[in-house]
C-alpha cells in the first residue's frame, strides 16, 4: 500500500462563504465532503484529513540559525493555496485517482494527487 496526499487548492482570498459562491454552495460542499470522509473510513482508505485556515494565518519559521527567524504569511506568495487535504492509503495510483475524483466532486475543487515516498 502507498500513502497519497490529496490536496485541494483554492483561492488565496476567501470570501464570506470560504471558497464558495453562496451559503448553499458552501453547505452542500461541506455535507458532500463529510459523506466522502465517512466513505473513506468505511472502505479503509482513511489516514487523515483536514481543512486549513486561510493562508494569511500562516507563519514561516527558519530555525537553521541560532535564533529562529519568524516571518508573517505563507512561504510562497501565490494566487492559490492548499485549502485542505486528505492522506489516504491506497493499493495503487488507479485507486488513488478514483478517490481523488470523488473527493474533487464532493469539495468542488481540483485535487492534486501526490504519493509519499516509500511504501506505507
Amino acid at each position: 500500500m502507498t500513502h497519497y496526499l490529496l490536496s485541494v487548492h483554492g483561492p488565496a482570498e476567501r470570501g464570506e462563504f470560504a471558497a464558495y459562491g453562496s451559503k448553499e454552495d458552501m453547505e452542500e460542499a461541506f455535507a458532500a465532503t463529510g459523506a466522502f470522509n465517512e466513505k473513506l473510513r468505511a472502505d479503509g482508505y482513511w489516514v487523515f484529513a483536514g481543512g486549513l485556515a486561510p493562508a494569511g494565518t500562516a507563519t514561516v519559521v527558519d530555525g537553521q540559525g541560532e535564533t529562529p527567524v519568524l516571518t508573517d504569511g505563507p512561504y510562497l506568495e501565490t494566487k492559490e493555496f492548499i485549502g485542505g487535504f486528505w492522506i489516504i492509503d491506497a493499493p495503487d495510483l488507479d485507486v488513488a485517482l478514483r478517490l481523488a475524483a470523488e473527493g474533487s466532486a464532493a469539495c468542488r475543487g481540483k485535487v492534486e494527487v501526490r504519493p509519499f515516498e516509500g511504501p506505507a
Partner: protein
Amino acid sequence: MRNETAPVERAFREEYGHLIASLVRRFGDIDVAEDAASEALLVALEKWPQSGVPPNPGGWLMTTAVRRAIDRLRRENLRDAKEQAALVYDDSTPEPTGPVEDDRLRLLFTCCHPALAPEARIALTLRLLGGLTVPEIAQAFLVPETTMAQRLTRAKRKIAAAKVPYRVPETADLPARLDAVLTVLFLVFNEGYLATGDGEPIRTDLTGEAIRLARTLRDLLPEEPEVLGLLALLLLIDARRAARVADGLLVPLAEQDRSRWDRSLIAEGHALVRTCLTINRPGRYQLLAAINAVHTDAPAASETDWSQILTLYDQLTRLDPSPIVALNRAVAVAEQDGPDVALALVDRLPLTGYHAWHAARAEFLRRIGRNAEAREAYDAAIAATGNSAERAYLGAKRAELL
C-alpha cells in the same frame, strides 16, 4: 563485426517487448527489467556469434536476464525493501477482471496511463515495447537525446513512486483507457507516415512498429472492434506507401499509381473492416478504416464512391465533431459538391496553424481559379509543414500557378 552482431540485435529487438514485459511482471520494477535485459544482450552478443542464435532466442534471453537480475539483486544485498519484494514477487497476485492477461498488454496500459504526459506515453511505448533505443526515439521526435532520456526517466520514476499499476484496466474503465493506447499507436504511425524533419519523408521503422504493436493488441483483444479498426486503418494507409512518394514529391491519393498499392495488405484491411461491421459497434478508428476501405476499393480515383465516403464522415462527425474531421470531410465534399462548397466549409474552421488546412484551401482555390489566393495558401501550407516531400509537392503545385 557488424555482420556478426546483426542477427543478435535483430532477435533482441523482436523479443524486447516480451522480455521487458515479463521481467517487469516478475521484478515489479522497470529499471530492474531494463538493466537485466541489456545484460542479457551483452551475454548474447558475446556467445551467439560463436554458438549461433539459439532455437528459442526469447526463452534464452529471458532465462539469462532473470539469472542476471537475481545475481545482481543478491550482490547489492537487497538494499531496500522494494528489491526484496521484487525477489519474492508473486505471480499469483490476484488480478481484476481484465479480459486477457498478457504481460505486454499490461505494460502497454502502464506506458499509456492517463496520469503520464502524452509525449511520455509515446516514448515509453516505443522504448519498452518497441525496443527502440533512446537516440532513435529522440530522433523520431526531433528532440535532443538528453531531453528524451530525461523524459523517460521522469516517467519511469513516476510509475514507480506513484504506483501506476501494471495491469489491464477493469472492464468498466477499458474503453477510455484503450482509447489512450490506440491514440499512442496512431500517433506513432502518423509520425512515421508523414515524418517531420529533413530525413526520409516516410519512416518505415515507426510505421512498422505501430503496425506490429497494433497486431499484438489485436491478438490480445480480438473482440474489441476499435482495436480491429485501428489495425485495419493502419494497414490500409500503409498499403499505399509505395505510391505515396515519387521523386521526392508527395503524391496525393487521386494521383497515385494504384498498381503499386499492396494488395495483400488491402485484402487484410478489408477483411478486418468486414469483421467490424458484423460486430456493429462503430467507433472512430473503424469509421476511418471504412473510409480508407472505400478509397482502396476504387480501381481508379475517378471511380471513388464519394457519397459512401461522405456518409461515413457524417457518422464520424457525430462521434468526433472536431475541426480536423470537418476538414477531411470537406475534401470529400469538394469531390461531391464542388470546391466552392468545400471552401466555404473549410474557411470557418479554426485551423490556421495546421498545414493540411492551408493545403486544402490552396487546392480548392486553385480549382475555382482564384490563383492569387491559391498561391498565398500554398505559401502558408509550405511554411506550416515539416515534411520534405509534402513541401516539394506543394512547391510544385504553386509553381504551376505562375
